């Protein structure tokens, strides 16, 4: 479809600068086709999502939606969750707080590799139960090595094992995020508080971002997540833990549905060793600032110039 010049065949708003053109064009085309033709045109995509509705297809980019439109979308998504999962949920649109820049640090001397953070992430973020998906991967590392690519994430024995240390890796919310740069439809961007987010309804599932991330922090949602009704976390936000459709990319968002309300992220709360430090980088009295000023911190693959917001330190 990408080689069709939609601008000539359908009324398309002039928004080249925004970069939304291709998707807008597709949508505008759909609007003029009528439902039957629309359904036929969409047939290939149906294998991804049997229930992609007209409404959903016509939905605007997050930044383009007015308050009213967004409100409608949120209620529609809540209804869909009720239909698909039998769960009453509340999906909010939470914006960054003024004067807040999030930062995260992890004490590698203390982490014991218990994976409680990954487990909490699975539950908090409504991940598929079958694959035990999580935005956090914990690597078992050889002492002396700092290259997590050499670590193993599938260890399954008592921890900590002698001679090993453990490095949980999740999205580092880079200030210079390569994943954002490669997105052809601007479905992912960096917010004011530093969180890199995804509009899951705008993502076309091309997976460029997944390949561009040097930290393997992005996941492709292969299947519609399976979650028992009673386990669906009903506290949700549009840009964070609402249940994502199949065929889109997802990743850690620093639990923005919690953190933008002043709460700790789920992985920090779940950590039984107290290895995680989270907070506002702009607040000189915050824990995270103390760590940055008093511990020798380092970031993963610093030489790539990605400027992560997630720091590691040893005591």
């Amino acid at each position, binding site marked *: 479809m990408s080689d069709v010049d939609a601008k000539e065949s359908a009324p398309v708003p002039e928004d080249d600068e925004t970069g939304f053109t291709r998707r807008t064009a597709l949508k505008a085309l759909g609007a003029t086709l009528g439902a039957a033709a629309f359904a036929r045109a969409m047939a290939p995509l149906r294998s991804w999502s049997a229930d992609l509705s007209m409404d959903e297809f016509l939905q605007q980019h997050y930044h383009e939606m007015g308050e009213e439109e967004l409100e409608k979308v949120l209620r529609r998504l809540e209804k869909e969750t009720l239909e698909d999962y039998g769960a009453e949920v509340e999906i909010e649109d939470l914006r960054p707080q003024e004067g807040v820049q999030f930062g995260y640090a992890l004490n590698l001397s203390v982490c014991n590799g218990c994976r409680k953070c990954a487990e909490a992430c699975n539950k908090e973020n409504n991940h598929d139960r079958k694959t035990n*998906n999580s935005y956090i991967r914990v690597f078992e590392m050889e002492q002396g090595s700092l290259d997590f690519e050499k670590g193993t994430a599938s260890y399954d024995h008592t921890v900590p094992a002698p001679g090993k240390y453990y490095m949980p890796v999740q999205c580092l919310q880079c200030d210079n995020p390569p994943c954002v740069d490669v997105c052809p439809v601007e479905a992912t961007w960096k917010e004011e508080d530093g969180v890199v987010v995804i509009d899951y309804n705008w993502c076309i599932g091309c997976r460029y971002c997944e390949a561009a991330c040097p930290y393997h922090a992005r996941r492709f949602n292969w299947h519609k997540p399976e979650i028992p009704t009673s386990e669906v976390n009903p506290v949700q936000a549009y840009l964070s833990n609402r249940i994502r459709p199949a065929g889109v990319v997802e990743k850690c968002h620093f639990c923005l549905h919690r953190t933008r309300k002043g709460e700790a992220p789920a992985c920090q709360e779940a950590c*039984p060793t107290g290895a995680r*430090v989270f907070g506002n980088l702009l607040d000189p009295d915050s824990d995270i600032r103390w760590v940055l000023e*008093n511990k020798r911190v380092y970031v993963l693959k610093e030489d790539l110039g990605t400027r992560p917001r997630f720091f590691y330190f040893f005591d």
Partner: protein
Amino acid sequence: MSQNLRRTLIVAAAVIAGVFVAALMTSIFGPEPEFEIDESPPESAAPQIYDDIIHAPAGLGTLRTELRDIHGDPIGVACSTCHLSGNLGDPPAKSADELSEFHVDMDFDHGDLACSSCHAEDNRNQLKLADGTQIDYEDSMELCAQCHSSTYRSYKHGAHGGMAGHWDDSAGPRERNHCLSCHYAHEPAFPDVMPAPPPRDRYFEVPTDQ
């Protein structure tokens, strides 16, 4: 518009409206009756700052029995039940390997500290600091801090011991663990555990079990 500017404008508008209404009232009803006007700002004006909540384990500094209370915590016996006024051993045991009765099955692996480095000798219901000051078991973090000052400093700044609740103290309290929530005083090494199950995904492959 900034929050402050907006607030100032609203207040200004309210004041102007108030003056106007007052003038109107005076002209209709004659002079205003005397009220007591509370000039102090409403209490909600200053943002509330929540203090940290520290969760100490239940029954600290008691001899836990098999009996449980309604919360499922073990019911403890006060040290003074037996130690009416200090030592009981004859001669008193100074360290774990000198114990010959009662506390004999106690595990101890905390440097080569003597019992009296931490327990007050004349009052078993209290701990004691290096300078002899007696403290309650709930305050035992002060005791730990004496010998582990750098860890304690990290703890004070959230870099050791973790937290739950709120990172933003104007939204809600930060909840912290006590040193003894994670470290048993006599054998403080953090125990080994079995990890939660690993994810069943592979980097760039469709999970095969689907």
